[in-house]
């Protein structure tokens, strides 16, 4: 049952050199991602997005990434040269960003962007790439792929833009998909459709998914396992179904602070942060 993990991370640290000093955004975290949906939750500044970007080494040059191990299967991501990283990005690990508006090329039709993503990693002609892109658009449940293929990003809605981005990220058939708040710029009803597509594709293709989100309820219901991050460290790792039975005071505090339709008229418990959570390591 236990297969070797796709991605293995040990003692990952990310430091930013800023004019006002060194900021350590990720402070020694360990985790593995297999063919599963692993969620990372945390508040802004907890280091969850930086972790996702560090895996792809998509951080500014002033950043120092260190780790005892940062590996995709047998490939050492930490010491891979730029040419190798270029082959990894998209082909083996791809990433979906929060807002399709800022992540798609505004002067290129969405269809060509998807076809380009395919041709980047596969030696095929234009016609084949176009056919694959149309199939992929159909896969992300776009009703009229031929029509959408020729649209520019500003002509599609937010939900459709996010589906286009998913299509573009999945067309090279990566082993691992990193999704950084893929639905938080979308309306609830649209985001449910997008999640269903992700869920379906992950299950069908046996991909690993690293799902980064601030939304505890969403992660608890969508993922298999959850890492809870705070201050650049992992507070605890839980099975997603057990998130509501979390024991760490930080996770408990976050859950209690969520308003629900049953909390009306009561004060919400406010999170008190304990410096001891961030034990030096």
């Amino acid at each position, binding site marked *: 049952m236990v297969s070797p993990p796709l991605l293995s991370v040990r003692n990952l640290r990310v430091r930013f050199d800023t004019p006002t000093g060194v900021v350590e955004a990720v402070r020694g975290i360990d985790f593995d991602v297999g063919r599963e949906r692993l969620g990372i939750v945390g*508040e*802004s500044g907890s280091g969850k997005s930086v972790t996702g970007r560090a895996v792809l080494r998509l951080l500014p040059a002033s950043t120092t990434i260190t780790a005892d191990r940062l590996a995709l299967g047998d490939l050492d991501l930490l010491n891979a040269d730029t040419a190798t990283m270029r082959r990894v990005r998209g082909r083996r690990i791809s990433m979906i960003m929060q807002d399709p508006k800022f992540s798609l090329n505004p002067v290129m039709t969405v269809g060509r962007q998807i076809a380009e993503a395919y041709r980047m990693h596969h030696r095929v002609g234009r016609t084949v790439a176009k056919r694959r892109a149309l199939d992929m658009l159909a896969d992300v449940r776009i009703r009229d792929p031929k029509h959408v293929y020729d649209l520019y990003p500003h002509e599609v809605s*937010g939900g459709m833009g996010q589906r286009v981005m998913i299509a573009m990220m999945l067309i090279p058939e990566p082993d691992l998909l990193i999704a950084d708040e893929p639905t938080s710029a979308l*309306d*609830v*009803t649209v*985001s*449910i459709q997008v*999640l*269903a597509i992700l*869920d379906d594709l992950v299950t069908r293709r046996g991909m690993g998914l690293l799902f980064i989100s*601030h939304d*505890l*309820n*969403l992660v*608890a*219901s*969508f993922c298999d396992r959850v890492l809870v991050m705070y201050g650049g460290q992992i507070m605890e790792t839980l099975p997603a179904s057990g998130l509501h039975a979390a024991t760490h005071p930080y996770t408990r*505090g*976050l859950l209690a*602070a*969520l*308003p*629900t*339709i*049953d*909390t*009306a008229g009561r*004060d*919400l*418990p*406010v*999170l008190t942060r304990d410096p001891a959570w961030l034990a030096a390591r």
Partner: protein
Amino acid sequence: MISVHHLDVSFDKVRAVNDVSFTVASGDTYGLVGESGCGKSTLLRVLSGLNRDWTGTIEIAGRAIGPVRDKAFHRQVQMVFQDPFGSLHPRHTVDRTLAEPIAIHGLDNAEARIARVLDDVGLGPRFRFRYPHQLSGGQRQRVAIARALILEPSILLLDEPTSALDVSIQAEVLNLLARLRAARDLTLILVSHNLAVVAHLCNRLAVMQGGAIVEEMTVESLRHGAPQHPYSRELLQATLGYHRPSDP
């Protein structure tokens, strides 16, 4: 306290608000929920006087109001915006931000009013001479609330006041709003895409879709009986997280 009848707002060809009518009693907290583009924020901007192009009737405290508002209106109705990073002047200190409404309305005791409102929103005097960039998101939203409260309005319009904030900070701001509402006897209108936030703070709410109110209900009935309209049910479902299609 607030009554709106047959309100219509159009932008070029788009009808952003379509024949909306509702009333809010004094002391009520009324929620407007819906997705982006449903017209909820436009509705709030019409009420606050930021959008002057509308038809229909609006009455506040029994007095019909038109597109252009006078000073007395603004003493009675104030607004808090979504983004605490965008709604405060970056080069004005908290003190100057709070002093401006006092100067405009020619009120006395500026000193005491500022000190009091800062205490009321839980910031205290040490924040008085800071600039927005020296404050966290939650602290900025407290300043925005203080700016709205300094004229002692009876109606507060809140446009997604917590959606730019982390959950733990959101809880603090929601508690603060509930406390101020009780202490100052405020009537609130809260616009949000988050049904849970609306249900937490409001006693009545309207679900909007495509510029129209599709359903109006009390939070009590939201909690007990399932909402009637399929769209309201969908929103309620979404607050509970993701459901695999294969799930029963």
